[in-house]
């Protein structure tokens, strides 16, 4: 009798993480129903095609890595090295580059409102939704051969484990151990492919909790805020390196975003 009870208890304990995980997945499925993500993609498409700036041209000549105006698969191949800028860039960094070089907009104007809110999303958020959607079904394959791409990966990896700030946090402080959660939010161990893959396959994403569409630059920014650090500069080498590290860790995963998250 005691053996049966012990067996049952052991089985229950073993099943607990699996049950918790299935509840997270169930929640994710439920929130994805009725998500307005595609509506953000549509506005993004309009913005991509809208002539703007002193040059009065659209972004349709913007080269996201596959050639001017080529969108299919471009997001899945980012971050990567760009010869014309001589640096590694992620999607948002590259969009900013095109806004200033192709459209002739000033950096001040183009960076005035990078992150939006529920009442008014930002141009960057709409564009990210549209461009990312054009990589659906493609495997994540960020740049890996150019020396600067390798440097970017190594910097991102070092940053992930770098403890600093008023609360001594690194990314790994929260994202370093399996089956942990912060309040009721699961914490994927982003330094492992198993956990990084489903995450990077679904950013950028619509966030149900604040009715807003959020991008990777925002996610990195907001993590550092909660890590009690100062603010990372948008599109800086550090932020791109973090994106490079996470995307490389998830490489090979089929992109299925933009996603819907809590």
């Amino acid at each position, binding site marked *: 009798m005691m053996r049966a009870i012990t067996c049952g208890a052991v089985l229950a304990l073993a099943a607990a993480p699996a049950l918790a995980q299935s509840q997270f997945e169930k929640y994710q499925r439920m929130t994805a129903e009725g*998500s307005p993500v595609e*509506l953000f993609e549509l506005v993004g498409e309009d913005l991509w095609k809208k002539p703007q700036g002193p040059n009065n041209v659209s972004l349709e000549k913007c080269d996201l890595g596959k050639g001017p105006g080529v969108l299919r698969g471009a997001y899945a191949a980012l971050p990567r090295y760009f010869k014309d800028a001589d640096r590694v860039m992620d999607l948002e960094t590259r969009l900013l580059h095109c806004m200033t070089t192709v459209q002739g907009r000033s950096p001040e104007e183009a960076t005035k409102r990078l992150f939006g809110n529920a*009442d*008014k999303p930002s141009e960057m958020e709409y564009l990210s939704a549209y461009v990312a959607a054009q990589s659906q079904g493609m495997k994540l394959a960020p740049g890996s051969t150019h020396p600067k791409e390798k440097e970017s990966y190594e910097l991102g990896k070092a940053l992930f484990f770098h403890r600093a700030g008023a609360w001594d946090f690194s990314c790994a402080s929260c994202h370093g151990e399996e089956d942990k959660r912060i309040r009721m939010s699961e914490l994927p161990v982003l330094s492992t492919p198993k956990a990084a893959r489903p995450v990077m396959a679904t950013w950028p994403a619509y966030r149900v909790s604040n009715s807003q569409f959020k991008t990777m630059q925002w996610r990195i920014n907001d993590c550092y805020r909660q890590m009690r650090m100062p603010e990372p500069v948008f599109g800086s080498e550090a932020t791109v390196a973090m994106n490079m590290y996470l995307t490389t860790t998830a490489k090979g995963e089929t992109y299925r975003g933009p996603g819907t998250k809590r």
Partner: protein
Amino acid sequence: MRATLAGGNTDVRVLMTHPMETAQQTKGAPYFIQNITVKVNGKPVIEGEISQAISRNPVFSFRLKGGAKGDKIEVSWLDNKGETNKTETAVA
């Protein structure tokens, strides 16, 4: 807004940007969409009323009988403060 033909019908999804704040949230100054009108090629086909029970930035999904590529769908709304807004698209 997206309007697509699907098996003889038109599926429409529209996001209406609006705070949709309840009387409780605003301590007595609610702000929400009250009336929604859907027109196809200028002709009203749906007249709806919603309340403060609907949350921020409502997404309205509905299906219209029939429809053809290029049909103009217009969704307009009126809130309790008398403000109106609308969005339109062509059936793809």
